[in-house]
């Protein structure tokens, strides 16, 4: 009987499973947050944390030990140059799992796994809104300004205000800051449901 035997098989042969672990750990350390099944996330957590502990140690031997597991040397470099120093004073517990909605299709329990100091990119500040504000304040002055901005922030929506009629621009002037924030929240929600 398979009593008191740790670890999950994940429906794979040993070599396949080991490859999967190394891929997942490498990607987790590269992106700092990944989404995967809860079982895989729980399996790789201790492995990834051991790699980070090696990164905290920082010596050559530790680096070579990390190289044995992590597939990408650039990621090893990142662990030793960035993540290790960041976690210097943290006695383990570098990773956090958060449960997500079950996967569509097979209903598998999903989870995100991330470094505990991972900071999500702030909700996109919507560049076209930022440019819309000064435009609304001084519509005439903004007109020559707009083409210069366009190459820097090429978004689909940015072209919109230029094509709009004068009334539409005037309408935007009256839009309060709180309304803009609400708009952003709504758009983010819409993005979620589209996923």
């Amino acid at each position, binding site marked *: 009987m398979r009593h008191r035997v740790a670890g999950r098989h994940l429906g794979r042969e040993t070599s396949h499973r080991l490859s999967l672990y190394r891929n997942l750990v490498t990607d987790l350390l590269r992106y700092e947050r990944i989404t995967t099944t809860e079982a895989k996330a729980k399996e790789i957590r201790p492995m990834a944390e051991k790699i980070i502990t090696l990164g905290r140690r920082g010596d050559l031997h530790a680096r070579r030990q990390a190289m044995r597991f992590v597939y990408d040397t650039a990621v090893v470099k990142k662990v030793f140059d960035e993540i290790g120093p960041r976690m210097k004073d943290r006695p383990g517990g570098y990773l956090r799992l*958060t449960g*997500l909605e079950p996967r569509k299709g097979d209903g598998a329990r999903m989870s995100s796994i991330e470094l505990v100091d991972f900071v999500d990119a702030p909700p996109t500040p919507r560049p076209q809104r930022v440019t819309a504000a000064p435009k609304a304040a001084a519509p005439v002055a903004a007109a020559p300004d707009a083409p210069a901005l366009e190459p820097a922030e090429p978004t689909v929506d940015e072209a919109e205000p230029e094509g709009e009629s004068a009334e539409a621009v005037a309408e935007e002037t009256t839009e309060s800051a709180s309304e803009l924030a609400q708009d952003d929240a709504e758009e983010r929600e819409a993005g979620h449901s589209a996923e």
Partner: protein
Amino acid sequence: MPPLPKRKYPKSRQGKRRSHLAIKMPHIVDCPRCKSPRLAHHACPICGTYRGREAITMPAPELES
């Protein structure tokens, strides 16, 4: 001849057998941030937060940074 039931099982016995087959309701709570229902101890699928922090990566703005 195929194998056959030895006797008729009454409706009451059938009901007793099925008394344990009910599907349990998942534990649903209201998201403290957006008030939409979500699974307990899971990130909210609507606003992407759990315990006040982002738990779902937003569609990344890849052009910047």
